[in-house]
């Protein structure tokens, strides 16, 4: 009897909880639902008219409320910022976020709240925040395919370009063409962008010049020469070529692309998110690496180098003689290397050294920087505040301040009008380790003085550690030699569903297959590669290729 009562009681409690949680669950979602419809740009324009307005906010003819004097009630916008885990740097609360709040936020009665996004875990972070309903108002990614994924998840609302033009005339004036050309997806305006005046000399592969001198070799200019160098290093007992595990942003195949490759093949296979494992360029790459691995020329445990820090540690410890990275004047690679080995000398490796004929194709950046969309739950006031924010940030003075800090404190202006950073400045207004890029990347990808020569001079100061300007100069010269080999990944104007469906599985397969293809004995390579190709195609890659082919046939892509 007693037992039955207790059982009944428990059952009632459990059911009640389930019902309550279901009701609350539904309630929340349905509320969100109505929000979303109100966010629809078309609907917004109608809603605008009967919105509660103050006397001083005028109704413009276009139907948008004028907020140039600020919002009557405070609007909070959440802005994403990449957290690169710089030591001693609080990404969401520092001198510059405070400055943004006082200069922009207080003027418009907007609270600018920064939300940290882990740089290496950004997709996971975003997906979880989107699921939890607390994602920032801007949803961003550097590469188009992932931005499309967010859109397909329903996380991004469609844009009203006139609204951007109304609230952010300067921003829109600069990026109008880019937004109109690349921002469309399935015929709708989905994305807006930061401008990008691409530079290629900020990615530098360091090579140990002292090792080259020791074995009496010149700077390698193609893959065979590079292998010669590595062989000589091995005989002298020095170290190997640096290598890391490739897990994303697939550009490894570029140096191996044949000169006569058709544009349709390029369009089908080039994809940062999905490794073109079955493509001939991949096979060349894998076979080269396999030979080098078996000869002991590359790091024998390269597959344990999952992070940049692992490869860096090997280079600093003198185990490897090459290391590629985005260089910055604040980098500690060279100083750490010198601390371990005072006789070490570094040089910039010729970019041709990676490819068989020394004429390596490379990944050419698209015309835009950051790809951004507005969160589907963002209200129209918040959206207006974001446009105002972008327009404020793209003003020359504001952007320059964010990029360089305070004149006379962080930098001095030289005769060319270029900001020269004060060496070892460590005051309150110190910039982040990548010159606050993660704040101003919303409007601009690379600091721009409007002239290539000036840009180079300025970047020399920003990129080169003091006394190492020649590294950047060499990188620039090598880039110039190879400039014609840039390849742009085509952009499809429709979302490719099979990519979002299979890319994660294919990525896991890629890691497994490619490590095995590199580390197996050369006799097994052909048979292993062939069987892995079949499996890769079977597990989704064929579907991706087919879908891309259909879009290519229908002309649904932009190739420049």
């Amino acid at each position, binding site marked *: 009897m007693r037992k039955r009562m207790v059982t009944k009681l428990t059952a009632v*409690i459990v059911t009640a909880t*389930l019902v309550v949680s279901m009701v609350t669950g539904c309630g*929340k979602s349905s509320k969100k639902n109505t929000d979303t419809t109100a966010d629809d740009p078309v609907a917004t324009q109608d809603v605008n008219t009967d919105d509660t307005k103050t006397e001083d906010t005028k109704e413009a003819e276009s139907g948008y409320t004028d907020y140039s004097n600020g919002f009557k009630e405070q609007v909070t916008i959440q802005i994403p910022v990449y957290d690169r885990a710089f030591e001693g740097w609080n990404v969401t609360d520092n001198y510059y976020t405070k400055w943004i709040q006082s200069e922009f936020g207080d003027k418009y009665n907007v609270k600018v709240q920064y939300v940290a996004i882990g740089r290496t875990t950004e997709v996971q972070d975003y997906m979880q925040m989107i*699921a939890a309903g607390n994602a920032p108002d801007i949803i961003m990614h550097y590469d188009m395919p992932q931005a499309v994924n967010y859109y397909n998840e329903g996380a991004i609302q469609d844009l009203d370009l006139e609204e951007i033009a109304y609230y952010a005339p300067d921003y829109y004036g600069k990026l109008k063409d880019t937004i109109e050309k690349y921002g469309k997806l399935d015929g709708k305006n989905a994305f807006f962008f930061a401008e990008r005046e691409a530079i290629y000399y900020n990615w530098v592969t360091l090579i140990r010049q002292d090792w080259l001198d020791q074995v009496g070799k010149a700077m390698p200019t193609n893959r065979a020469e590079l292998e010669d160098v590595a062989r000589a290093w091995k005989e002298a007992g020095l170290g190997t070529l640096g290598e890391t595990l490739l897990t994303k942003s697939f550009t490894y195949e570029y140096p191996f692309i044949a000169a006569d490759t058709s544009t349709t093949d390029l369009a089908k296979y080039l994809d940062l998110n999905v490794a073109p494992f079955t493509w001939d360029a991949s096979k060349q790459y894998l076979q080269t690496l396999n030979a080098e691995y078996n000869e002991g020329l590359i790091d024998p445990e390269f*597959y344990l180098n999952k992070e940049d820090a692992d490869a860096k540690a090997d280079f600093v410890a003198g185990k490897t003689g090459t290391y590629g990275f985005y260089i910055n004047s604040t980098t500690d690679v060279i100083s750490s290397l010198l601390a371990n080995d005072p006789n070490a000398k570094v040089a910039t490796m010729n970019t041709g050294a990676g490819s068989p004929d020394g004429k390596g194709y490379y990944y050419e950046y698209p015309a835009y920087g950051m790809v951004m969309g507005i969160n589907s739950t963002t209200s129209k006031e918040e959206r207006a505040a974001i446009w105002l924010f972008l327009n404020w940030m793209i003003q020359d003075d504001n952007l320059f301040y964010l990029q360089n800090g305070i004149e006379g404190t962080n930098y001095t202006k030289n005769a060319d009008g270029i900001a020269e950073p004060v060496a070892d400045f460590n005051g309150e207004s110190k910039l982040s380790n990548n010159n606050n890029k993660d704040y101003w990347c919303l409007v601009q990808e690379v600091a721009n003085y409007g002239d290539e020569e000036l840009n180079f001079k300025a970047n020399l100061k920003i990129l080169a550690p003091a006394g190492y300007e020649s590294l950047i100069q060499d990188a620039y010269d090598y880039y110039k030699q190879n400039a014609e080999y840039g390849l742009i990944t085509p952009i499809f104007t429709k979302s490719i569903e099979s990519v979002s469906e299979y890319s994660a*599985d294919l990525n896991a397969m890629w890691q497994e297959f490619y*490590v095995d293809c590199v*580390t197996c004995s050369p006799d097994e390579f052909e048979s292993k590669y062939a069987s892995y190709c079949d*499996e890769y195609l079977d597990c989704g890659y064929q579907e991706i290729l087919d879908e891309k082919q259909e879009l290519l046939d229908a002309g649904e892509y932009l190739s420049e």
Partner: protein
Amino acid sequence: MQESMEVAISKKQLQKKQGKNKFRLYMKRNWQLYALMILPMAFIIIFKFGSYFGLSIAFKDYKVAKGFADSKWVGMDIFEKIFAKRNFGKAVWNTLYLNILDLIFSFPMPILLALLLNEIRTKWFKKVSQTLLYLPHFLSWIIIGSLAYQMFSLSNGVVNTIIANMGKSPIPFLQENTWWLISYVAIGVWQSMGWGTIIYLAAITNVNTELYEAARVDGAGRLKQCFHVTLPCIRGTIVTLLIMNLGKIMQGSFERIYALSNSKATEYATTIPVLVYRWGIESGKFSEATALGLFQSVIGLLLVLLADKIAKKLGEDGLI
């Protein structure tokens, strides 16, 4: 006839009344205990049962921005999809395989160790060795993982450096499939065996000392006492723990594999928790991950029930 029926009815009513009174009396006497139960019950209801609602996305095409309620119902489509995935069969098999190996090697070790510890007569030595044995349990798997690579990796590992110095070729402890499996199990045993002894030691202290005296009188040595007194007396504990471990046979620790795996030795490293992580956390396919998790839990539950039945058949108490 009618009279007897009336009597029966009134008796029933009386019993009911008495029952009610009894219950009231019982609650009056023990309400504090039930009050104490409220908090843990609330915890389980809110955090365990409350989240059951989320399982619905295993049957939906869940889009993060749409939420639970607005995502489309798709029936068993998600399950069909995950069952057809290339890694699914491998993951199920690996999960079972790794856990069975763990059961074979990790399960008996704490019993053996508890028996050995129990025989130590020097108090300080027993305490020191127990503390040292417990220690690995408190280390995070991430730390154990990096320790393992410091110790056992091919070119940098301490152990392989020693082997190489002795003029032998290094052993790929973590970088070859079979060796990886061996290392995985061995590290697991090392990590868990000390902690596992606690329950057995507690059970051993409950063994009636008279039994040992009687055994000694009958001429049993320490080894025989172990086998004929200690072990039979803690049999109940062993069976209970075995059932609980059988329930875990479809689970397996994600952290352990994640910390120890690398892209070279992947044959055994694809398990259900790894796939749940890859699909759910890494690529945001929450529906697939949930479906896989649900599948795992259902099989796990069936296994527990089966083990419980078997234990009862064998004359033990069982769990339920």
